[in-house]
């Protein structure tokens, strides 16, 4: 469904992505893990059309999208939940969700949008309770749910999430990951970027490890979870499991 080939991107003199390739198939949940500064967020911004790549190809349903603006990519069924949530803090929860469906807004879609809104509300009960509250006054976890809900409002076929556990209390992280597996079981294709490797690999089918702008490892979730290289990436060279 999504295929990235030799992608290079960066900011100014800084080259963040250095020829990165990966793919996500239909119905699959893929985790992308790696330390801070490895280029995860840059990759997602490039895919979503916020950032222009220097070279390389991004195919969504076999169509090149690397030169399309963000607005068009959403319309093509690829929604990004940005890092740090980015909810519209001065708008109410309901308004946030409605704007999520902006790209599909039309009279004949009216009913469908109400349906998705209902789905999102039943997925995140708290959002229904707080629908009239300003999004900026929600807690971090609730904002994360709102950001996911807003992305779902566009009825995406591919949902990309950037660090949904960032700055969220541990208990809520569990909730969010539960929701992600519910979405996956419903058949949604998911690309998940996480620092919290353990949690990410638990919901994903496959995973990639990214280091300084390149994919260094690839495999099923189980393989990666047991790979000592993965642990090294997080805790440094000298780290050895005590039971080894």
């Amino acid at each position, binding site marked *: 469904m999504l295929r990235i080939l030799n992608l290079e991107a960066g900011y100014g*003199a*800084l*080259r*963040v992505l250095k020829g990165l390739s990966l793919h996500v198939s239909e119905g699959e949940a893929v985790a992308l893990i790696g*330390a*801070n*500064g490895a280029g995860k967020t840059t990759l997602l911004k490039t895919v979503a059309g916020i950032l222009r790549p220097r070279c390389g190809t991004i195919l969504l349903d076999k169509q090149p999208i690397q030169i399309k603006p963000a607005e068009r990519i959403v319309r093509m069924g690829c929604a990004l939940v940005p890092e*740090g949530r980015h909810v519209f803090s001065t708008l109410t929860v309901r308004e946030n969700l409605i704007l999520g469906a902006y790209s599909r807004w039309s009279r004949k879609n009216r009913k469908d949008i109400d349906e998705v809104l209902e789905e999102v509300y039943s997925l995140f009960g708290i959002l229904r309770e707080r629908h009239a509250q300003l999004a*900026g006054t929600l*807690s*971090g976890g609730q904002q994360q749910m709102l950001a996911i809900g807003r992305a779902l409002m566009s009825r995406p076929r591919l949902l990309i999430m950037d*660090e949904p556990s*960032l*700055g969220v209390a541990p208990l809520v992280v569990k909730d969010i990951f539960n929701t992600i597996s519910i979405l996956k079981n419903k058949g949604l294709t998911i690309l998940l970027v996480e*620092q*919290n*490797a*353990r*949690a990410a690999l638990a919901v994903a089918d496959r995973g990639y490890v990214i280091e*300084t702008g390149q994919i260094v490892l690839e495999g099923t979730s189980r393989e990666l979870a047991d790979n000592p290289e993965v*642990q090294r*990436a*997080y*805790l*440094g*060279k*000298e*780290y050895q*499991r*005590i*039971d080894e």
Partner: protein
Amino acid sequence: MNNCLLDIRDVSRSFGGVHAVRAVYSSVTEGMIKAVIGPNGAGKTTLFNLIAGTLAPHSGQVHFRGRPITGCKSHTIAGLGIARTFQTTKLFGHMTVLENVMVGRHPRTRAGFLAGMLNLPWTWREEREIRSRAMALLEEFDLAVIAEERACNLSFGQQRMVEFARALATEPALLLLDEPAAGLNIYETKALSERILKIRDRGVTCLVVEHDMSLVMNISDEVLVLDQGQKIAEGPPRAIQRNPDVIRIYLGEDHAANSES
């Protein structure tokens, strides 16, 4: 500790409702390299900004060489001997590499507006000294060949080094390095760690925020771990690597359990 250079006492700072840094205590001993680690959003950069005076803490105090510097403007703090580099390098892009480093001499020189306008003879001497000191630093950093290049034309790694040299030009007692290895390749990172060790050897204490764990574990004498604004652990790198709380925030519950078993 008697030769404590920087003392952070119960410092807190929040943005809106988010506690970026919460009741952190720590101290930096003269002559050491101390690393600050933690996941994204743990409050590391905020802590740096609190020390450097870019932000004022909502509560708590920071002491430098036994003197309180809480609430001081960042240029005053720089004058007292704390220099810093930035997460995204902040060079003066349209100035040359040499000029960038020469600006670093600012707190140690004194020619003012009038002297500058009238080009008084004593300023010539000062100017010569600024130039030669800056040049010496560039030579030390192997940057002398690009001294006349505009900073914005440099590669990313070079910009990092120039920023480094510029910070050192202020003759700091304490150097704050914010993610110095971000965006560098393996060789550059290796050179960087040697550079940091060298700087320490000439008597400049370093406080480093870094994500590259191998770098942190290799060079630091002490590590401070933050998570969600709070201090999780502090100690020598070996101990930090085995600390179950630290493993938990990096690898998740299971691994922590494994390690403890």
